[in-house]
């Protein structure tokens, strides 16, 4: 089930862009084109984080691409991230961008990965076409989840983003902005193939080759931004559970279970609505999503969050509330299958209280408390859950976010 050795088509694109990136970095020095902005820019972002919880019955992760997480001891792996980005403006309408990110990932290392590597062509100023490796914007702000400096909370609310462990696709997108009076209407469409691995117990689930397509419509009216988005994902592979099923179930039942829990060729639908108010000292956000999972291995879910921040000098305290719940499926066939299916269940609410301190230019410190109150059956967002899990715990987080 572990596909680490194969060079699939997305892997080839990966290598081509890695070479491009290398050429950009070696060959070019920063220089100006007359009085214009520099043609080549190197920028970066990062977070140093520490998190602990009040429970040793589960491990808390930032998202499901992480195999292990935090419990009662302070853990610096979960939120620590470093990203580096090179932008090369080839002509006024053509730009090449490469971004690599190092974070705690499915194989328990901080191996850097290519997160973005694309060519952008702008035939007109309000129309943008990109092709290559692109971040996915299934939900609002989903494509900048790793840039701590860009948002208020320590991490994007987990309850809202648990169902979205994928970050990018190899494909293309198109975005158009149309002024409507002094408001703006913006739309985007994307299509691509995902790649990557999602940690599952001791194994990895290969999501290479899964097709994704989607789009959204935004309406910016002064300080308000509204968005409606839809995305669709067709999984290519099954979960790596075949040998577990074969070893725990006698033959006819094992084959039946493998088919029942198959994810290959199933389709999932993601719907989302969002509203943001951003003016003066206020920042308000409301997001809702609904995921329709096409396989028995996952449960369809509803989630959302509200967040309010109010700036006082260089400190912005914030309050938030998030929730996620999934629908248990009826037919579990037998106890082994039932146990695997129970792994996909989430049912919890989280209260969030914290503050962001803009200490120095381009550096922010954050402290946050998350009060997770859920059912003991809510185990989907966690790792290493034990039978003693009560569904309730507190999470304490401290981060330093920076850009350069």
């Amino acid at each position, binding site marked *: 089930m572990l596909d680490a050795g194969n060079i699939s088509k997305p892997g080839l694109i990966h290598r081509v862009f890695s070479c491009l990136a290398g050429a950009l970095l070696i060959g070019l020095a920063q220089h100006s084109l007359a009085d214009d902005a520099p043609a080549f820019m190197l920028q970066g972002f990062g977070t140093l984080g520490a998190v602990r919880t009040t429970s040793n019955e589960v491990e808390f992760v930032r998202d499901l691409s992480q195999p292990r997480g935090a419990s009662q001891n302070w853990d610096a792996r979960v939120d620590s991230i470093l990203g580096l980005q090179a932008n090369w403006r080839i002509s006024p309408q053509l730009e090449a961008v490469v*971004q690599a990110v190092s974070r705690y990932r499915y194989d328990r290392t901080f191996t850097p990965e290519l997160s973005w590597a694309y060519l952008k062509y702008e035939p007109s100023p309000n129309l943008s076409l990109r092709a290559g490796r692109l971040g996915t914007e299934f939900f609002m702000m989903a*494509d900048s989840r790793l840039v701590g400096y860009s948002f208020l909370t320590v991490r994007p609310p987990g309850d809202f983003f648990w169902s979205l462990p994928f970050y990018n696709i190899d494909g293309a997108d198109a975005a158009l902005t149309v002024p409507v009076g002094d408001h*703006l209407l913006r739309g985007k469409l994307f299509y691509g193939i995902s790649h990557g691995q999602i940690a599952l117990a001791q194994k990895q689930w290969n999501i290479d080759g899964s097709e994704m397509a989607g789009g959204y419509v935004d309406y910016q009216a002064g300080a308000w931004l509204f968005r409606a988005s839809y995305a669709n994902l067709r999984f290519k592979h099954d979960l790596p559970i075949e040998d577990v099923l074969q070893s725990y179930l006698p033959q006819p039942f094992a084959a039946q279970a493998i088919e029942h829990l198959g994810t290959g060729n199933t389709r999932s639908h993601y719907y989302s609505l969002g509203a943001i108010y951003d003016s003066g000292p206020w920042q308000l956000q409301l997001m809702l999503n609904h995921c329709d999972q096409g396989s028995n291995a996952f449960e369809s879910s509803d989630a959302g969050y509200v967040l309010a921040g109010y700036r006082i000098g260089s400190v912005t305290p914030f309050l938030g509330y998030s929730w996620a719940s999934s629908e248990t499926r009826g037919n579990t066939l037998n106890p082994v299958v039932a146990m695997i299916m129970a792994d996909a269940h989430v049912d919890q609410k989280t209260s969030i209280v914290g503050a962001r301190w803009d200490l120095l230019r381009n550096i922010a410190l954050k402290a946050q408390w998350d009060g997770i109150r859920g059912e003991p059956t809510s185990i989907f967002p966690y790792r290493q859950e034990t039978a003693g899990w009560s569904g309730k715990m507190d999470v304490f987080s401290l981060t330093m976010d920076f850009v350069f």
Partner: protein
Amino acid sequence: MFVGIVLLLATAEVWAELVVVVNARSGVAAMSRNEVINIFFGRNRQFFNGIEAQPVDLVDSHPDRGRFYSALVGKDLADINAYWSRQVFSGRLQSPPKMRTSEEALKWIVSQPGGIGFIELAKADARVRVVYELQP
């Protein structure tokens, strides 16, 4: 004479007010507050007449930058920089170029067909047109 000094001081304050100016040959006349915001935040990259907008900013250490965003959207520079980090690292936009002085900014506005920037009223000359006055 006392009244004269008060009037003089009041006028001096007016000349120090920030205004948004565009290249006088861009064909842009007056803009609304939302239109100015959409241009400076890179959301709209074109003026109504199709000319590409080329906004110019100042470095953080220049006092006019903080005054501008405070008057325009009531936001701290940290929030503005956080906004741009989201745009830059999700591959959407680069922030407008940042000049160290108002004179450099003026030079930029005049050299780009769609140049737009902000400056103290006293420093605006005939090569630019005032399209919006910031309410303090």
